[in-house]
């Protein structure tokens, strides 16, 4: 009965409290009953349950083998903690990782728990398995107040963990200022190294803890490197911590020079170093002056080293350009005080701010002397050749082929023995090194020129070329041309200034145009995108407002409206397109948009472009004004084409050769007329080819045109209707009439188109290409099916498909890259495209004209030639496949541009 009562009593209590009132017999089950109560600090319940129970309060459970005391300490359940301690819980019990309840309380900042544990004699000096003690845990989290209480119980404040790290190390790393002060006040060793030799200051610097570093330095921390020689300054620079660097320099003045010297170290990330120097220079004017002057000195030394022929060109060149880049960047930012910001130092070296360029004058002086030296040697070489004075000392050095000089000297006595005075006889001995000064120094000098340009232009407002630099280029024109003629790579590597100043560009244009298309493409995009944010920005999430939302059913009008709402800068940064009512986004949609839109632009309904005679290419419609808004649409079309080119998207339009020339600003010629009026072009060709003196053509410098049904006489030049066309002036007539048909008739349209195009593609950059290449850039590389090509090829003058030369030819063509096949097609047909329907539909000057290969007798070194009007390749009868391939490639790479081979 009584038992029943007891049970009933328990039941009621249990039900009333909504929990069991009796601990289970076994510890494992019991502990899981108690744990939630401990976590919630339900000490009465715990106390009640523990009463009369045989539960072992030190029972360790779970994966990490903690006791309930750990749980209480961890959760800050102070009442339960006391209860457990009273019931004999071991305050120093260690869990599987060696942590005591005190560790957990310290880690989580459970102040009261910590106090109680200490009352019950918890040992503060116990290390966990990683060697961490309670003070480490406090230091990690910066619990200064708790540390204060605890530290007096600590026997050794410099106790090390397994890595030799003290509490001070971790506090510094995490930048807990008060904790650091507390530890220092408690006698922590300020210079203590860990196992790898890292001191507290080292840790503060490695994480850019400016204030902590300041505290340490004020308290006399030594500036010590780790065991690998890595210094606190190295760490600050690696992390780009300008403020911490500034503090280091304040305390250790000579670190300033070390910092400057770091610009020469290619292992250091340039952007981080720049960030640091930027910060330090912004502190005050004197820092600004000092940093720039020092950078200028380092750059000068570096530039001189680069001019030492035994130094590594690559390393010194990169180093020089890096230093100068940083220098210019810091200079441009200007000193911190804004009122001096207006002074850009245009007045040479008179203003204080431009004083910082002074050390560099030494380098520019050397550069100048070097160029003068080379110029002198070039002159002497020329002079010698002209006057055929043999064996000039300098000339022998300048001769391209090293072996040429002794033979020249040997030949000399036969020609002019008397001119060989003793001094000249000595020459081969004196300059026996026989190396070519120009080829040895050209790269190095060009890199210094690049640096010079950077320094000149950073003193100028954006977009202006420094008069000093222009003067420099003009002065050394001959030498610079000699450099790039010998090694055109120099243009792409170092002569970036050309792209920024058209007046200088024109001097080098012919050399640039002779460079491979691929190199020019790279250069083009490198400069087009220069100044844009880094490409890793591409992956940023697209802002909803930055999406071009296009209506598919009215793609032209809708695109026009949307694009006009965006700034050019936005469009340059990137484009994201979504069609109205569709989900799709990404590159595929962008491509589709350009594809469809370009088809729409040439849609005859808009009357903007007309088809040319061959039916595949387009050019502006001279009558586009039927569409009153036509010029705005032309501008839009130009913008879209420019934007596509900017983002390397291809469009589905092919323009006439003459329109590509218009985009490039190249004058058209009479052959271009054939694209809109082939018969008329033939007539122009005829009057050029034949003597017109006695034909009685009665032509004047004027033409009659049909302007909406009314015939009008249009003079080709002022007073043209009264000037007779004669045999002597017929060329001018042809040119003027060509310009009238091709250019003047569509001038407003061209202008509007270019206005749009140039918003994305500067005219100076597109100049790098010719009309064929522009087509490749805009519309891409067409696929060429060699089988189809071979099937639709005819042979004449002795060739047939069985001829070995023809067999070789097709084998070679199959081995060509896609780009080379296009070049071959361009070489022979003048067009890079295969007509719709394949090679069977290839057009010539008068209707269908298949690709034809004609035999030419072989003489040594003879190159293949072509007649583009009849799609004929004149292929010499080469003796072997190798010769054929070699000659063909030479012809393709040199001859597919311009008309030299036509």
């Amino acid at each position, binding site marked *: 009965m009584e038992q029943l009562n007891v049970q009933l009593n328990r039941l009621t209590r249990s039900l009333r409290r909504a929990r069991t009132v009796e601990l289970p017999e076994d510890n494992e089950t019991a502990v899981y009953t108690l744990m939630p109560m401990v976590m919630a600090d339900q000490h009465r319940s715990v106390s009640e349950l523990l009463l009369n129970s045989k539960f072992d309060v030190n029972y360790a459970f779970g994966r990490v083998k903690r006791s309930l005391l750990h749980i209480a300490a961890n959760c800050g359940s102070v009442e339960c903690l006391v209860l457990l301690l009273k019931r004999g819980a071991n305050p120093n019990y260690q869990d599987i990782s060696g942590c005591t309840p005190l560790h957990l309380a310290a880690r989580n900042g459970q102040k009261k728990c910590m106090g109680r544990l200490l009352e019950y004699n918890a040992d503060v000096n116990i290390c966990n398995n990683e060697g961490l003690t309670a003070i480490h845990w406090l230091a990690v989290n910066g619990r200064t107040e708790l540390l204060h209480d605890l530290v007096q119980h600590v026997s050794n404040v410099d106790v090390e963990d397994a890595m030799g790290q003290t509490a001070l190390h971790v506090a510094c790393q995490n930048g807990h200022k008060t904790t650091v002060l507390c530890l220092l006040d408690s006698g922590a060793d300020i210079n203590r190294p860990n196992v790898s030799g890292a001191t507290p200051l080292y840790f503060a610097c490695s994480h850019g803890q400016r204030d902590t570093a300041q505290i340490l330095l004020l308290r006399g921390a030594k500036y010590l*490197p780790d065991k*690998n*020689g*890595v*210094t606190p*300054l*190295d760490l600050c620079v690696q992390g780009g911590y300008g403020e911490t660097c500034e503090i280091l320099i304040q305390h250790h003045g*000579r670190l300033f020079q*070390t910092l400057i*010297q*770091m610009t020469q*170290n290619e292992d250091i990330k340039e952007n981080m170093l720049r960030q640091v120097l930027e910060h330090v220079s912004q502190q005050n004017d004197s820092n600004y002056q000092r940093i720039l*002057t020092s950078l200028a*000195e380092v750059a*000068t*030394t570096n530039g*001189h*080293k680069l*001019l*030492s*022929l*035994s*130094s590594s060109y690559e390393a010194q060149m990169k180093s020089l350009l890096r230093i100068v880049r940083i220098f210019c960047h810091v200079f441009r930012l200007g000193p911190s005080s804004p009122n001096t910001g207006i002074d850009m130092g245009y007045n040479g070296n008179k203003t204080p701010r431009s004083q910082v360029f*002074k*050390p560099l004058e*030494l380098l520019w*002086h*050397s550069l*100048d*002397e*070097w160029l*003068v*030296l080379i110029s*002198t*040697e070039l002159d002497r070489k020329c002079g010698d050749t002209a006057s055929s004075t043999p064996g000039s000392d*300098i000339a022998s050095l300048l001769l391209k082929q090293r072996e040429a000089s002794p033979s020249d000297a040997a030949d000399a006595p036969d020609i002019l023995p008397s001119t060989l005075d003793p001094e000249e006889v000595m020459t081969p001995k*004196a*300059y*026996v*090194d026989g*190396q070519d*000064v120009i080829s*040895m*120094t050209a790269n190095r000098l060009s890199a210094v020129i690049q640096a010079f340009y950077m320094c000149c232009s950073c003193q100028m407002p954006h977009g202006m070329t420094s008069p000093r630099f222009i003067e420099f280029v003009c002065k050394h024109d001959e030498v610079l041309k000699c450099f790039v003629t010998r090694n055109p790579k120099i243009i792409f590597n170092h002569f970036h200034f050309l792209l920024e100043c058209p007046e200088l560009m024109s001097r080098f244009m012919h050399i640039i145009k002779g460079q491979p298309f691929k190199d020019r493409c790279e250069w083009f995009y490198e400069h087009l995108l220069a100044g844009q944010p880094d490409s890793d920005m591409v992956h940023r999430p697209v802002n909803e407002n930055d999406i071009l939302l296009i209506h598919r059913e009215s793609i032209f009008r809708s695109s026009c409206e949307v694009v006009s709402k965006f700034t050019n800068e936005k469009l340059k940064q990137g484009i994201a397109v979504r069609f109205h009512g569709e989900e799709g986004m990404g590159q595929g949609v962008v491509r589709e948009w350009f594809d469809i839109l370009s088809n729409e632009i040439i849609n005859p309904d808009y009357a903007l472009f007309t088809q040319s005679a061959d039916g595949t290419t387009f050019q502006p419609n001279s009558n586009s004004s039927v569409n009153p808004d036509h010029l705005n649409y032309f501008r839009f079309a130009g913008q879209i084409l420019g934007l596509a080119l900017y983002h390397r998207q291809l469009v589905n339009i092919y323009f006439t050769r003459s329109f590509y020339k218009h985009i490039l600003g190249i004058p058209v010629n009479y052959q271009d007329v054939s694209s809109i009026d082939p018969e008329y072009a033939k007539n122009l060709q005829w009057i050029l080819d034949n003597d017109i003196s006695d034909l009685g053509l009665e032509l004047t410098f004027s033409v009659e045109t049909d302007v909406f049904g009314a015939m009008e006489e249009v003079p080709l030049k002022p007073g043209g209707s009264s000037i007779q066309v004669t045999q002597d002036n017929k060329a001018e007539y042809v040119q003027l009439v060509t310009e009238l048909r091709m250019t003047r008739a569509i001038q407003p349209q061209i202008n509007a188109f270019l206005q749009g195009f140039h918003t994305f593609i500067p005219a100076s950059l597109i100049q790098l290409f010719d009309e064929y290449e522009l087509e490749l850039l805009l519309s891409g590389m067409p696929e060429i099916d060699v089988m189809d090509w071979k099937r639709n090829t005819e042979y004449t003058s002795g060739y047939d498909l069985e001829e070995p030369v023809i067999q070789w030819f097709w084998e070679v063509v199959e081995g060509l890259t896609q780009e080379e096949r296009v070049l071959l097609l361009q070489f022979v047909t003048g067009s890079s495209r295969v007509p719709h329907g394949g090679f069977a539909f290839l057009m010539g000057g008068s209707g269908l004209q298949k690709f034809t290969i004609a035999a030419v007798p072989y003489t040594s070194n003879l190159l293949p030639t072509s007649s583009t009007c009849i799609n004929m390749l004149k292929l010499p009868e080469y003796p072997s496949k190798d010769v054929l391939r070699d000659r063909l490639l030479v012809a393709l790479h040199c001859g597919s541009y311009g008309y030299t081979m036509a």
Partner: protein
Amino acid sequence: MSETYDFLFKFLVIGSAGTGKSCLLHQFIENKFKQDSNHTIGVEFGSRVVNVGGKTVKLQIWDTAGQERFRSVTRSYYRGAAGALLVYDITSRETYNALTNWLTDARTLASPNIVIILCGNKKDLDADREVTFLEASRFAQENELMFLETSALTGENVEEGFLKCARTILNKIESGELDPERMGSGMGHTPSPRTQPLLLQLQVCLGVVVSSSNLLRHLETSGSLFMKSICTLNLQPLSFASGLAVMERHL
């Protein structure tokens, strides 16, 4: 990771073509003789960190081409140099005769205070000697130069030449005669008014002592002693003078 040093001195190696300037530099930096050395084109560069009187000094050495055609280029490297090795070939009087020109260049283009050590190179070719030790040392004294005969082949006196020059500069810095802040800057600087008269005074003093025939005779017989004395002179006016005093006592 970063190189540290107390001072950075810019040095020049100048002198006529074929005197062995590049070989001297190579010997100093690499500790070996440079076989099949070609004519230097323009200016070459070398550097070494040395310990001088407890200080670490980085020597940044510009080895110039001796050929006349490079003269205007090499001259553009002179500015800001603290020290120079003026090299001639003891087997070529022509190179010795050109010294005055080189000296004028160095003093006008680098700095009037530039510390110069005259190096009679190719000491190992004593059999072909065209310039005696004595006349060169006289030239050195007249022009306030330190003097050594060196051999880039054997390495004799090469290290000494560079170090002596560095030591002298360091002494001048410590005595306040040179300002290191301005030295490395590549900017020209004027000699302090204090040192100029002292230098002149010394020249006069030397003139008197050296012209004494007794001394000359003595020097011919005990050249090594003289050299030793010269070597200990730092070209600091006062110690130079006391060095002479020591010599006179020997006589």
